[in-house]
């Protein structure tokens, strides 16, 4: 299995113009690979995940291609995408905990969902999968309101992986969880991969510490574009893009206190994606910016499997 995303551009239509949320992103996902996806809130992570599953009415596929095992995905053709959705590519959406139908017990919801895809539930397998994420069977008899945030999150994860997709996109699945459940979910996800139930994974999270423990490689996006992608160890120990460096630099030391020394984030905010400025999108916040950065930096492979979009990194 290989997924190849090439210069993908997906914009949102709004009354005020197009929001260029995904503006030329390319990468490969290899067989068995877990790719961590990180970046500032609003940089396009969820948009990337949605683009590989279903474009909603406001999303427009402006350019680029996505190829799965040599087949180009018909991104703009909602019906043709049905052949891929859930079976080949599945998504655990961000905030999926609020997407559960409040009038249905979890078990019935799963049966109905699978029936709509022409599959019947293998109860034993379902129980095994629940156990894998640390849920009791009795959640099947409960309504969503009766579960805590983290329990709902795990239930959706089980649902999304029941059909053993080749590619699983997990959007912030651990963000609502405490550390012990994070360990359980990460263990479950790697377990699904190791057992071959899911071939490869895109693991979206803002938590770089956690990503570093599950991902084989990490991709960092900034304002709709790729900033840097590298094997996990390389990215976390020798980042080359100024944004990646600053993001890693803003991770707190455990035990830090405001009273002793306030931490600081990265000054400023990302540019508007409605009419983004030309040139490097990190320019206004970048300590290394100079005249050349008014021109857009290309993505350059500076070492095997290590790509960076910055004039100063090459």
């Amino acid at each position, binding site marked *: 299995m290989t997924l190849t995303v090439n210069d993908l551009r997906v914009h949102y239509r709004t009354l005020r113009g197009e929001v260029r949320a995904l503006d030329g992103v390319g990468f490969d996902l290899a067989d068995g690979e877990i790719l961590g996806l990180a970046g500032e*809130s609003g940089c396009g992570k969820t948009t990337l995940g949605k683009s590989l599953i279903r474009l909603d009415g406001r999303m427009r596929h402006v350019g680029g291609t996505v190829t799965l095992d040599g087949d180009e995905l018909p991104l703009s053709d909602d019906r043709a995408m049905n052949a891929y959705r859930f079976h080949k590519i599945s998504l655990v959406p*961000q905030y999926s905990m609020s997407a559960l139908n409040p009038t249905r*017990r979890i078990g019935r919801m799963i049966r109905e969902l699978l029936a709509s895809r022409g599959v019947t539930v293998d109860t034993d397998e379902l129980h095994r999968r629940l156990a894998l994420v640390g849920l009791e069977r*009795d959640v099947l008899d409960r309504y969503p309101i009766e579960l805590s*945030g983290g329990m709902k999150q795990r239930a959706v994860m089980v649902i999304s992986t029941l059909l053993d997709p080749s590619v699983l996109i997990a959007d912030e699945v651990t963000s609502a969880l405490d550390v012990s459940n994070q360990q359980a979910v990460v263990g479950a996800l790697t377990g699904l991969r190791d057992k071959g139930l899911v071939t490869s994974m895109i693991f979206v999270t803002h938590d770089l510490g956690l990503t570093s423990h599950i991902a084989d490689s990490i991709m960092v996006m900034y304002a709709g574009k790729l900033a840097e992608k590298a094997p996990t160890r390389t990215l*976390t120990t020798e980042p080359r893009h100024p944004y990646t460096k600053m993001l890693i630099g803003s991770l707190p030391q455990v035990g830090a206190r*405001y009273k002793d020394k306030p931490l600081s984030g990265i000054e400023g905010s990302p540019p508007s994606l409605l009419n983004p400025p030309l040139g490097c999108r990190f320019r206004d916040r970048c300590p290394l910016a100079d005249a050349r950065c008014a021109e857009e930096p290309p993505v350059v492979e500076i070492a095997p499997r290590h790509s960076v979009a910055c004039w100063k990194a090459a």
Partner: protein
Amino acid sequence: MLTLDRVTKTFRAGAFGGGSTTAVDRVSFEAAPGELVSLIGESGSGKSTIGRMVLGLTRASSGSLTLDGEQVRPGKDFYRRVQGVFQDPFSCYNPVFKADRVFALVRRAYHPGVPDKEWADRVEKAVRDVRLDPGQVLGRYPHQLSGGQLQRLLIARALLLDLRFLVADEITSMLDASTRIDVLNLLAGLKERGLGVLYITHDLSLGTYLAERTVVLRNGRVVERGDTQKVFGNPLHPYTRTLLAAVPRLNEPWTSAEPVEVCAFHEGGAPDTDLYETEPDHFVACAGLPDCGRTSA
């Protein structure tokens, strides 16, 4: 001052008909003005249920919750002083209205006298304070904003009220490291002006950053609480130790904690209360170890 005294919440759970779940079991703690108390514990341990009781959104089955000496009683006057920002921002927006309607509602309910221009300025300032660009987020529908953007709009909304107390349920959990620090520094500023905060989180890496006090919850019960420096610096309950050891750190192995040999509660002479004060402002519950005189229920 927020005071919880032996607060309990029991749900009649749907599972198998008649069962019931005690989501919160005799929890007591206080949060003074200008103080941030963080509430940590695993998924399902009752954190959000406590937050909802503090906000008067659900009633305690027993025990008392008071704010400045008065029982928590939901109503307009109460919500002028106390507000919550929730774990799941989508549920706080009505999808058919623009997201910034949450600001208009605040104005209508609490600041009807403020002139248009001044109100617009206040909204803009609050939006900038949470590191958002007003031009990018105002006038949009909820589905047009990212998760972190929606969550920050709710924080901005809380900033527009003259709050005395804020319940913040996992408000930074969907934010990247840099934005998270900005939001926390903002809370620090509000705290200095006297705001009390109940900060529900599972993110322990920032646990010591702002919190004066920490309450560790498990299965609805407090296992350890007190001065944050003491709880984090010298965790006594095996559960607290496991939690702290399990924080994922960049470029370090992800470990589980080593088991604890003695139960600080029973070593201290097994008092009759639920929690034993091992040092000033540091309380711990029975660890339920095999040699314990009794096990914590």
